[in-house]
Structure formats: structure tokens, C-alpha cells
């Protein structure tokens, strides 16, 4: 336990130091890693702990991103208020989508969410909503700068802002998973009939899980929009949802640290792969997905757990 605590402290210290050691562009990329980590945490709560599959979480990311963009650009709200709003909106939206969706099992939920993911860009481009969403062109957002005249450039400030939100979200997730809710979810996932018999209201928990996971992804979307300073429909197509799936598979299911491993993977691999060819990132993602499913189904987090277990018991 002490070791775990120590490693978290070290990670946090490194995280705080990094922006001062690398370029602004790298800091921006690290901010995106944090954003993805939050989104992956959300998807992991749904898929790893609650056992439901979503191929449409990109839609909730989009919802959160557009919430932030619309509030900032059209209503002039300050950037930091948009994050909790995006979270709340997605919590409700996710819960509502989860209510009917929980009747669907495995493959069929995947199918329905896949449809959501594919249809999202069209919904965002709908011309009746253009006044709000900016249509095909999207919305441009102003980059926030550090408050109270703090001596941080905008990239660094945004990084720390995102870091704080990320820490909050991770702690929240940790509590959820360790507590009654987490245990209930795992019970429902592994032995639904027995769980019902013990008085766990499966339907409610599953919808709530969907809602919470959507909330996380929405928060990530808002933070991502602020970081990138731009939202447009075509960036939120089904490939975003698939990217999140890749992150969860590679990072590791039912694991909080997995979200970080996965986030690093999905942020940096395409950058490297892009040098090879435009098509390469996805071919590599696909190859990694297959590789992990066949060879390392518990993801990087699972492998790390195995290794540290081996070291502890020689």
C-alpha cells in the first residue's frame, strides 16, 4: 500500500514538473493525454466495471465539447464554468440513453452505440441547428490565459487546469470503484441474477453507470475543446469512439491506471505513425487491437500488475 502511495506522489511530482521541462507544443500534447485519460476512465467505468460495451462514446465527447464551445463563444461564459456544465449535461444524456439501452446486451448495445457514433457528425451538421453549432465550419474558441496574473503561459496554465480536473476525476473514480457502487457494478457484471437476488437494482445501477461514464467523457470533451480551441462535426465521427475503445483495450480494462497508459498510447502513436503515411495510424491501431486481444487481453495495466505481483513473490 505504501508503495502505491509513493508511486502516485512521484507521478504527480513528475506531472507538475513536466510543463517546465518541455516545449509548449509538448505541454499541449500532454494536456490532451490528460483529456483522453479522463475520457478513457469514463469508458472503462462502463466497459470494465459495468461490463457494457459502447462504440459511441465519441458522441458524448462531442456533446461535452460543443457544450463548452457554445457556452464560451455564443454566451460568453468563462471557460472554467463550462466544464461542470458539460459534465452535468452528459450525465443526464448518458443516463437517458442508458435507460432503454440497458435492455440490450453485449453485441446489441455495441450495435446501438455504434449507430450513435456514426450518426453524430450528421446531427451536428444539421442546418436547423446551425445558428447554435456553427454547422460544418464549427466554432472557434479563444484560448484562456492564466488568472490572477500568474506567471504561466496559456499552454502551461491550461495543462495545470486540466491536471487538477483530472486528479479530481481520478479520485472520484477511485472512490466509486472501491465503494458500494463499484462492488455493486462488478456483482451485476459477473453474476447478474445473484446480484438481483441480493437486492441490487441492476437496471438503476446500469443506467447510472452509463450516465457517469458519459459525464466523464463529456468533461473530457469540454477540456479537449478548450485545449484545441476548436470544435467541428467531422472531428467527432465514429473513429473517435473507436479511438477510445483502442485506449481501453490497450490500457487495460477495470483499471484506473489503465486510463493513463491508454491515453499515452492514443495520443502519441498516431503522431509517430503519421510520419509514415496518412493511413498508417489506423492500420497500427488495428494491429495493436488484434495483438492485445490475442496476446494481452488485460492490457498494459494487466501486464504491469502481473509483473509487480511476480516481483513481490519470488
Amino acid at each position: 500500500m505504501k508503495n502505491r502511495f509513493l508511486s502516485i506522489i512521484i507521478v504527480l511530482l513528475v506531472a507538475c514538473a513536466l510543463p517546465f521541462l518541455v516545449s509548449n507544443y509538448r505541454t499541449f500534447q500532454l494536456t490532451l493525454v490528460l483529456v483522453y485519460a479522463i475520457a478513457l476512465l469514463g469508458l472503462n467505468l462502463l466497459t470494465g466495471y459495468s461490463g457494457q460495451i459502447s462504440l459511441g462514446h465519441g458522441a458524448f465527447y462531442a456533446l461535452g465539447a460543443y457544450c463548452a464551445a457554445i457556452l464560451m463563444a455564443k454566451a460568453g461564459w468563462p471557460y472554467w464554468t463550462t466544464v461542470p456544465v458539460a459534465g452535468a449535461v452528459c450525465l443526464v444524456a448518458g443516463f437517458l440513453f442508458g435507460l432503454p439501452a440497458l435492455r440490450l446486451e453485449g453485441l446489441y448495445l455495441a450495435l446501438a452505440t455504434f449507430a450513435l457514433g456514426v450518426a453524430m457528425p450528421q446531427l451536428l451538421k444539421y442546418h436547423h441547428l446551425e445558428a447554435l453549432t456553427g454547422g460544418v465550419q464549427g466554432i472557434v474558441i479563444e484560448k484562456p490565459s492564466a488568472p490572477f496574473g500568474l506567471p504561466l503561459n496559456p499552454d502551461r496554465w491550461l495543462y495545470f487546469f486540466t491536471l487538477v480536473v483530472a486528479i479530481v476525476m481520478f479520485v472520484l473514480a477511485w472512490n466509486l470503484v472501491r465503494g458500494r457502487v463499484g462492488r455493486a457494478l462488478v456483482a451485476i457484471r459477473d453474476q447478474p441474477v445473484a446480484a438481483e437476488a441480493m437486492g441490487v437494482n441492476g437496471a438503476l445501477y446500469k443506467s447510472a453507470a452509463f450516465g457517469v461514464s458519459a459525464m466523464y467523457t463529456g468533461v473530457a470533451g469540454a477540456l479537449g475543446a478548450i485545449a484545441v480551441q476548436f470544435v467541428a462535426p467531422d472531428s467527432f465521427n465514429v473513429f473517435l469512439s473507436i479511438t477510445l475503445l483502442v485506449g481501453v483495450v490497450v490500457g487495460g480494462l477495470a483499471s484506473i491506471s489503465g486510463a493513463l497508459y491508454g491515453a499515452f498510447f492514443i495520443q502519441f502513436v498516431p503522431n509517430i505513425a503519421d510520419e509514415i503515411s496518412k493511413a498508417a495510424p489506423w492500420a497500427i491501431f488495428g494491429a495493436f487491437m488484434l495483438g492485445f486481444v490475442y496476446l494481452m487481453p488485460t492490457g498494459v495495466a494487466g501486464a504491469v500488475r502481473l509483473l509487480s505481483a511476480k516481483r513481490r513473490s519470488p
Partner: protein
Amino acid sequence: MEALLHQVMAGLATGGIYASLALALVMIYQATHLVNFAQGEMAMFSTYLAWSLLEAGLPYWAVFALAVVISFLLGILIERIVVRPVENAPVLAVVTVFIALLVILNSLAGWIYTYTIKPFPSPFPAGLALGGFMSPHEVGAICVTLLVLVALYVFFRFTPLGLAMRAAAQNPASARLVGIRVGWMLALGWGLAAAVGAVAGMMVAPIVYLDPNMMSGILLYAFAAALVGGIDSPMGAVIGGFAVGVLENLLGAYLIGNELKLSVALVIIVGVLLVKPSGFFGKVQVTRV
């Protein structure tokens, strides 16, 4: 009135494409109880292969036949190599493998053939047919779809191999007890589905132009069609396909405009899964307890 008829006819034409792809989905579902998310990309890839053969100078119908055969073999290969390891794995693993397949095929096509849109020829003459309501290609596409359906029906109903495939899909344990090599039946199912998908791709490419992303929307409609008809009913898939095609066109023309058409598919999918999960002609329970 004329406009309505035109929309219905055009809907039947695209409906034929949805029906073909839905048929491929149903065939794989019947054999494996799995939904092949990569069906669209497999069809797209087959169409690109056909395009290469056409560029090499071969005549259309020879290319058509070759593309179908090659796709059949590729389907078998994919089942044996990619799908077999996860046949009994948890659902997430299976879904991940299918999505990986989707993504790999999509990027392979983009890498080999680039993302520039290419025209794909139709074997049917240009102009108008049927009193001006449809193009000869649209008529031809419907005819081809129906021909494929009839051929498959005859195969499954009247040949020993078709009977064996049906048996293996319904009850693999009993099928083994009569000596059926269930694993190969699965591979054959994938081969046939891939072949049908190739036909669908070659029929739709002249309309929407060849591009690595051409099938994603169509796949969605095929899902909707297969669910409406009943995910384990081939006839349902075909009827569902035509129904969805017409519905899409009518809604697009008169109610919601062409922009939200994919949302129609989404609504159909979610609606059917909630209200009548076994579809209109299916018998299977959708929720596994």
C-alpha cells in the same frame, strides 16, 4: 404523385444494396451469433480489388466473377485466421476484433488506393428506364440482389452442404455428432457473406463513387434492415433492406431533409432493439440471460 413514385423506386434501388449487405450480416449471425461490424469494409475492399482488375483491362463481368471468388476466399481466410481465436471469447474481445478488422481494411484501402474518390463503372447502360422512374443501373442492381437471394435460397434449401451449414449454425454440438466439420462450416459462412458483400459493393459504387469510407453509412442501414427483418432471418433481411431504403428516401424527401438520414438508421436500430428485438420475421431472443 410522380415525385412520390420516383422516391419509392429510388428507395427500392438503394434498398436492394442494403438488402444484400443485410443478407451477409444475417448469414454470419446465423452461423456464429455474432454481428460482423467489418462487413461494410470487407465489401468496400472487395470493390477496390475489382477496380484494380478493371484498371488492368479485364472485361466487367469477368472482373465481377473474379472479385466474388476472391472475396469468398478472403472471407474464409479471415474467419480461420482472425476470428477463430476469439470464437468463444467474451463479447468485448469479439467486438474489438471486428472493429480492428474494420479499421485495418479501411486504412489498407486508403494506403493502397489513396483517399481520392474514384468512379466505378456500371455494367448497365446509361439513360432512363421504367418510364423514367429509375436508371437502368438501379433496375439492374435490384435484379442482381434478387438473383443473389434466389441462389442462396436454393443453396441452403436444396443442397446437402447448405443443409449442413444450417445444421451447424442451429446446433453445433449435434452437427458434430453427424460428422459435420463445424469449424469449416463457419468459414464457409464467412466466405459466402464476403462474396455477397462484394456484390453489394460493386452495385453501390457506381452510385456513391469509390472511396474508403463509402460503406460506413450503408453498413448502418444494413444493420437497421437486418434488425427490422430479424437478425436471423435471410428473407427478413431482404424485405427489411427494401423497406429501410424506401423509408429513408421518403423521410429524407418529405420530412427531415437529406441531412439527417443516418439518424433515421440510428432511430430504427434503437427502436427495433427496444420494441421488437427479434424483428418481424426472426425467432431468436436478443437478450441472453
